[in-house]
């Protein structure tokens, strides 16, 4: 029989291999030892085979001990007993008449490894034990443990898994302790920072272009206006998601209760954690709009303004009242270093989009059925869905055949809030399109108009003549007026050589005021000179920032000539108008139709930077329109030069 054919050396080898394969679990080793005993006690076995069997017996026992050590260590028990057993085995082996050198060496090696593991474990535990209940020490301890693991991995790239498991367990423990610690020190803050927001079931959203402008709006505060707080959170969340950032929603009360140090400490911890997964955060403050006390509000505004300078991500504030004027609150409280702030009304969805989505969802499979659905429900949708916002729209969309119930319920529930908000909202915020069946727009404060007849405080007779000249087109007026404002009746060389930077800035601001009026801008953007290069690109000569509220001009370029300044200023002012048009009501300036407003907005949403393909950048709608505006103004100015007398 084949079994009988196995020689003793083969049998012994097999026993060892089996045990090793099973990672020296007790049962296998035990049965192996018994089989070896049979061989050792077999009087017909040769002396060599008996010695071989004895050596393997020692190896098995060492293996068992080592494995048990690791296992007991993993389970958190004392390992000293195991090490002492191995030590004894080694001693026994040494006592033998002919000690087996290989076994001895192997056993000693394993003993060293085991002792190192134990030392490593102890060092980790030691770190966390010394940290005790001190939060800072815990964080530092956690980092130290991570360092230790990294070092160990460097020395023993193939080290056994048990150590890693234990280390990870310790780190998790430390994290838990840190979290508890924070919660005790700054109640609610930590949880608030790490609060998971999940809007994943609501799929439909709109990306507001103003929220996207990361480069330009870094370090600035953006006030998001909507009648509903959840709507604000939803839009902010979607926006953050779109640019792969984490949205952190912070309750004002929590923010207030935390000390300034404690808050920035928690924040740095959050940023640190996000960094490890290559993410950054957007912070949204909610509840600030419910604070009534003026001093308390100012204090909080000041803190947020300070925070916006330290924090590298974006900061949003939710405003559900519409009349809080957080922008001024943030801007004015920082003394000389004015913090940047601006506001954005989160407009209600457009009726076309709502109709389209509902007909796809509930109307049927083909276009015809959908058309019929819309014919039946158009008026209903128009009146009931008007104030639901994007979140409400999503809720309706997933409501299947109960969608009308949900829509009506939401509509009723929110209608008063919505109307109040709309009435209180500063007249220019674009909240809802006229196409909806709602009377809020009628009750709202009227939009600013552009009064061409207003006299500017820097006006003189010449400027008045230009602006009131009936023979000039609007673009020609702009051209002549800007040239006059910049040159003040003098020639180009006077502008380039004879005036200082301050004077130039005053003139440019005056010119901007004129342009602003003709473009229908409520506020004249601030003009700043930039000494070095603007932004990343060396060839950039002007930049329209903060959603049109700030225009930066390259000083060296503007110093050169009046013509240069005029063109870059006109271009950037037009951008300012485009930005503002995106979230202001339609004004129809210079024959621009609503559809162009819409496309500007969409173009801003996926703006093509000047760093890439030159033509893709140059020919995109917002850039081309601005460039065409400049050329048109210049052309009309020149072709009407005989009409205007400067002196």
């Amino acid at each position, binding site marked *: 029989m084949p079994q009988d054919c196995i020689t003793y050396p083969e049998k012994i080898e097999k026993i060892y291999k089996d045990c090793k394969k099973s990672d020296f679990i007790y049962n296998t080793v035990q049965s192996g030892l018994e089989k070896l005993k049979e061989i050792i006690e077999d009087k017909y076995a040769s002396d060599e085979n008996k010695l071989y069997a004895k050596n393997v017996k020692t190896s098995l026992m060492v293996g068992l001990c080592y494995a048990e050590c690791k296992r007991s260590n993993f389970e958190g028990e004392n390992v000293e007993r195991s090490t002492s057993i191995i030590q004894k085995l080694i001693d026994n082996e040494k006592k033998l008449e002919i000690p087996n050198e290989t076994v001895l060496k192997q056993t000693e090696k394993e003993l060293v490894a085991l002792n190192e593991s134990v030392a490593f474990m102890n060092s980790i535990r030691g770190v966390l034990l010394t940290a005790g209940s001190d939060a800072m020490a815990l964080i530092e301890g956690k980092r130290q443990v991570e360092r230790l693991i990294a070092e160990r991995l460097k020395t023993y790239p193939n080290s056994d898994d048990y150590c890693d498991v234990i280390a990870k367990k310790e780190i998790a423990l430390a994290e838990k302790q840190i979290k508890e610690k924070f919660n005790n020190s700054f109640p609610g803050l930590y949880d608030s920072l790490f609060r998971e927001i999940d809007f994943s079931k609501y799929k439909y959203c709109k990306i507001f272009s103003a929220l996207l402008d990361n480069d330009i709006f870094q370090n600035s505060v953006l006030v998001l206006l909507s009648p509903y707080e959840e709507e604000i959170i939803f839009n902010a969340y979607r926006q953050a998601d779109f640019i792969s950032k984490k949205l952190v929603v912070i309750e004002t009360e929590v923010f207030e209760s935390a000390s300034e140090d404690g808050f920035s400490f928690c924040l740095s911890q959050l940023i640190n954690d996000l960094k490890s997964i290559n993410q950054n955060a957007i912070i949204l403050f909610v509840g600030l709009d419910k604070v009534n006390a003026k001093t308390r509000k100012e204090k909080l505004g000041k803190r947020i303004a300070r925070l916006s300078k330290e924090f590298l991500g974006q900061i949003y504030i939710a405003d559900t009242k519409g009349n809080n004027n957080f922008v001024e609150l943030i801007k004015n409280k920082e003394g000389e270093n004015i913090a940047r702030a601006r506001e954005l009304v989160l407009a209600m969805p457009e009726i076309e989009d709502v109709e389209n989505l509902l007909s796809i969802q509930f109307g049927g499979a083909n276009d015809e059925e959908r058309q019929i659905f819309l014919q039946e429900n158009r008026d209903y949708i128009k009146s009931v869905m008007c104030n639901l916002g994007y979140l409400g729209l999503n809720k309706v969309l997933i409501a299947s055949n109960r969608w009308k119930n949900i829509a009506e319920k939401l509509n009723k529930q929110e209608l008063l809030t919505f109307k109040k908000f709309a009435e209180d909202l500063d007249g220019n915020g674009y909240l809802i399109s006229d196409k909806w069946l709602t009377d809020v727009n009628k009750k709202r404060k009227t939009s600013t108009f552009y009064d061409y007849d207003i006299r500017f405080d820097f006006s003189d007779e010449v400027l008045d003549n230009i602006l009131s000249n009936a023979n000039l087109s609007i673009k020609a007026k702009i051209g002549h007026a800007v040239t006059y404002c910049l040159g003040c009746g003098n020639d180009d060389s006077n502008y380039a050589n004879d005036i200082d930077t301050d004077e130039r800035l005053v003139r440019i601001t005056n010119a901007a005021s004129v342009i602003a009026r003709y473009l229908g801008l409520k506020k004249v953007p601030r003009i700043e000179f930039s000494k070095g290069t603007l932004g990343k690109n060396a060839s950039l000569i002007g930049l329209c920032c903060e959603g049109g509220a700030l225009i930066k001009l390259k000083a060296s370029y503007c110093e050169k000539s009046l013509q240069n300044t005029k063109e870059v200023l006109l271009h950037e002012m037009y951008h300012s108008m485009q930005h503002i048009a995106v979230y202001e009501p339609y004004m129809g300036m210079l024959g621009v139709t609503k559809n162009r407003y819409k496309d500007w907005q969409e173009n801003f949403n996926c703006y093509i930077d000047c760093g890439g393909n030159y033509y893709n950048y140059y020919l995109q709608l917002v850039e*081309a329109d601005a460039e065409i505006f400049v050329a048109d103004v210049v052309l009309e100015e020149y072709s009407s030069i005989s009409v205007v007398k400067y002196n």
Partner: protein
Amino acid sequence: MTYQDKIKQIALKIENSEFSFEESSKAVDELNKILADKDISIENKSSAEDLRDKITARGLFSSCKSEGYPESSCKKALDILASIIARRGAVSVNSRLVNDIIQRINNELTINSEFSKKLKKINEFDSTKENEFLQAISETEKLIKNYEKSEYEQLDRDLLTYAHKKLNEFKVEYNKFREKRYSAYIKTVFLKVPKEYDNYKYFLGVFSQAYYNNCVISAVSFNEEEIIFNAYKQSQKDGKSLLIIDLSSYLSLKEDAEKYINEKIFTENNNLDVVIIGVENAFSPVMNVSQNELLIKAGEFINELAKKINGRIIVSNKLNNLLDSPLFQGQVVKVSQIIVGVPQLSLVCQALQNENKENNDIDTEKEFIQNNCYAIGFLGLNKTIENLSNWKITASKINSINKQSFFELLNNLQNTYSLIDSDWKIAGEVKVDQGEREFDFSGFDSEVKQFAENTKLSIYERIGRGLYVIMYKNGTESDFAKLSDEEITERLKTGCYYLCRWFLLKEPIVTVVADLKSDINSNVAGMCCGGGKEIMLNLSTAKNSPYYMFSTVAHEMFHAYQHKTHNGEKFNKWYFDYFGTTPKRSEFYRINSQNYADFYTVDDRYAAYRYQILEADTNIFTADVCDAIEDIRRVN
């Protein structure tokens, strides 16, 4: 069984067989066994020998036949058959059979030798004369054809194979001969692109596929090389090869050479673009054939190219050249003219800035660039960048070489923005045709006219309502979808022609295709090709979304209008009055159509497509028109 019976049985068996080698030798073996018996009767012996000879003779014949009468086996068979006759004398009953077989085998041998002789004679043609080459080929073909006919099926198969081989050899030799003979012509007709073009980075997307599908492009530039260069780079970008044909050399070809060159062009693979240059030389007065004939010939040739080649056909042309004459245009179905613009000032500055890292502020060099780089073209721009250390010298040198032809073209243009953007100092003032435009809607239904001519309505309402009536008559949009293909096509065509009246456009060719596709997109609603020469519309879109087709018609026709505004015509005041288009906007349309971003549904390239000024303005126009008819749609 008696011997007699046995012999009879063998005879019967073999008679019913095909006298294959195996059957024959088996029968012969059996007969030999019988003959080996010493005591066999003479009668039996003689009948057995008779049968054996008969079988041998027939076997030999059928083996020759199945082998295709090779000379060697025929001769061997003849020897054996001769020995049978010699052995047995002419008295045997089989002798007639044997003689007959001998004669037939001899016959075949004669045919074979005749064939060989003919082939040998063909082979002796004069390989320095083309007509003899052709004759040899045709005669060989004829020979093979004749002998392959059934009556000569007995021809030696090796011989036939040999003949086929020979025919192929003739053909290969003939091609080599022609290649050698016409190599000089090939060199003059087909031009090669300089190798350094591969390294050049900046080029104009003027020949982009999206706009010049299906049309012959008549490209106007101050420099022919500029056209070749830009076309080459575009073809390279599209993964195609470019064939550059010198028209003057082509038209002066003799008939045989022309035939050869045509074969060369049309048997090339499909992945080909063509540039035709040398138009001016082709029609110089030195030529002794009348120019009209030449024009027609050129037209025919180019039209043939357009029909057979899938890629672009670009003809380098000058303004008001002979190629614009009706004689030429009459031959070519769709010609679209483009003026190849020079690089924009800002591009030249940016390119120099990007390439020249040491020179941080190109602003200081703007004056120099303004004065010395306006006529360098894209090729010159690349060459300038190549010699960066000496860029000023290189640029001004190229500029001065191009200057004369540049101004020649510039002065001939109605407006300079068709060639050069207004940032350049050299760009002239915009010439505006101040004339009021008139609307002519004659030929349209009164219902259409009633909207189109109603000045109380906005321009968008007038356009939109008229188009709506044309497309849907008094029915609904879903009624429209149910119409016959012909009726839909007719209405779409009328819709396009209606918009032509608004934009004062020549009526384009309107093609309604069952399933319109582009290289990138599998489902396209409409396309405006050749700068407005052809409008292609998708029938399935018209049926599936009738209202989308309404906006598509407006969309594609606005594209046609956009091209009209920049392509060499004088700027008309009504462009602005009715459609808000200013000269600068026309200039942007020109720059955009020369740097068009293709349609991609995914990634950031979608934004480049969607928001480029040509597309964005068109979409805005379309949306304005659609908004203006919103109320009548609701009523319906």
